[in-house]
């Protein structure tokens, strides 16, 4: 059931995008998302060109990018339909209480494009960056928040440990499920409510075991002198290379172009 989720999956390849500092990719994704909301009409051409060039540079097959959309297509259609029927303006088609307006078509198309591009944009980041590097990037980028007592290091550590234990817990879920099935549990038949109820005998032992694992791991980490982020050095400290600065310049130029298109040309 997890195989459709491309967000968080890594596609190993040797490309410029893969080699970029994870912080650049994180900031780049943010800038791209901002630009999607800056664009009004023809600006999306710029967004499309930018997106496709990055996909080409990343050497990740296009099919992989689109797979991420499968998880959200219901949300996508829902948003588009709502926008299509509920926007007020010049009516172009009417049936009973339903009506489609010229403005509605425009907004629906815009929302659709925005959502699709947003998801592809985020997929590029996760497909080209290992989860560990992504956590490192977040830890480093959000470090200023420590001044307002946000436990940045701890959150990053929790994320990387969660990533480490996802496969272990999934295997365990499978084992528990088979053990329950061997004793006659039925997960396949019945309506939705019955099926959800049937999950309880899986979830309870899974939680118990997860807590036990957490306890063991905490002990093992303490035994290896873990005492929070203070005084800790890093095995792979993030250092910007010249290509990262170049990438930042491209991103800034892109953002500036997006804003200029909107402000000057009213696109």
């Amino acid at each position, binding site marked *: 059931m997890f195989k459709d989720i491309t967000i968080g999956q890594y596609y190993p390849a040797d490309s410029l995008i893969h080699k970029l500092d994870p912080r650049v990719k994180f900031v780049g994704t943010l800038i791209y998302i901002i630009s999607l909301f800056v664009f009004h009409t023809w600006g999306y051409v710029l967004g499309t060109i930018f997106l496709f060039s990055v996909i080409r540079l990343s050497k990740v097959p296009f099919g992989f990018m689109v797979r991420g959309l499968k998880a959200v297509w219901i949300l996508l259609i829902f948003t588009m339909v709502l926008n299509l029927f509920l926007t007020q303006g010049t009516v172009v088609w009417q049936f009973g209480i339903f009506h489609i307006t010229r403005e509605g078509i425009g907004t629906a198309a815009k929302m659709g494009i925005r959502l699709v591009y947003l998801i592809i944009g985020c997929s590029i980041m996760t497909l080209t960056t290992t989860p560990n590097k992504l956590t490192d990037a977040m830890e480093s980028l959000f470090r200023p928040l420590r001044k307002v007592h946000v436990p940045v290091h701890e959150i990053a550590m929790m994320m990387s440990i969660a990533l*480490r234990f996802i496969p272990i817990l999934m295997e365990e879920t499978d084992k528990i499920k088979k053990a329950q099935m061997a004793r006659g549990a039925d997960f396949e038949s019945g309506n939705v409510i019955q099926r959800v109820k049937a999950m309880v005998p899986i979830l309870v032992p899974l939680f118990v075991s997860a807590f036990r694992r957490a306890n063991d791991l905490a002990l093992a980490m303490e*035994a*290896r002198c873990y005492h929070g982020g203070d005084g800790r050095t890093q*095995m792979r400290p993030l250092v910007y290379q010249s290509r990262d600065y170049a990438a930042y310049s491209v991103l800034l130029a892109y953002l500036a172009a997006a804003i200029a298109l909107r402000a000057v040309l009213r696109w």
Partner: protein
Amino acid sequence: MSIIKADKLNYDYLEYGEDGEKPEITHAVRDVNLKIREGQFIAILGHNGSGKSTLAKHMNALLVPTGGTMWVDQMDTHEDDEVWDIRQRAGMVFQNPDNQIVSSVVEEDVGFGPENLGVPTDEIWKRVDDSLRKTGMIAYRHHSPNKLSGGQKQRVAIAGVMAMKPKCIIMDEPTAMLDPNGRHEVIQAVRDLNKSEGVTVILITHYMEEVIYADNVFVMDEGRLVMQGTPREIFSHVDELHELRLDVPHVTQLAHALRLKGLDIPEGILSIDEFVDAIMKIRDGGTEGRSCQSD
């Protein structure tokens, strides 16, 4: 010089009943005195609930004694300031290989300890290379721990401890969840480290086959240290060990049984080779081999 020294060590904890009855005091460790010299290979034996794991957790200050004192490399574990120094000197490997690996890449996990100690980046990489090589895991450095076998995971855990440059490694039943191949693999790696690096090893186990390599064996029962000596001395007391619900190696058991039947075979035989030698000696001895006539 002793690296680990316990003086009248006691550890009690309260055990709460299920329906709010009065908590009961459990004496997990009682009046343990022991001394472990640097470079030794020590085994601690005992059946479940004998207090051996509790004792082990005192050796790197994960637990602090409720009575008596524990010194690790001349540092008292009661001192809060020295906790991290103690844990650097005395590393610990636990039973479940999955629950002690922090990172999703082998080499990053080995680097976790040195990172916590604040070791500079270049030095971390040197230590990671070094300890992966010593444990024979260098080929798996970029792998995910999830794809390794149990024995390999435990070797990664040992490498992770070695990267902290400890003087002593405490292993709390490191082979209990492994298959025979994995057990052999882990014990071999630890013995090599003990011999080549001179690291003190304290192995807690209930597999008797792992004990025969030790310089010194401690046997625990109900929180007390009940026997102490070389493996040969310990395994000369087969009946006492049985009373403590401990097994002895099969060959020791066989020799003991033959001796009870009247065969003139020495006590405390540890290996098959030794057993064969003893039997051959009796046969070659000729006339006085009383019950051996049949072959």
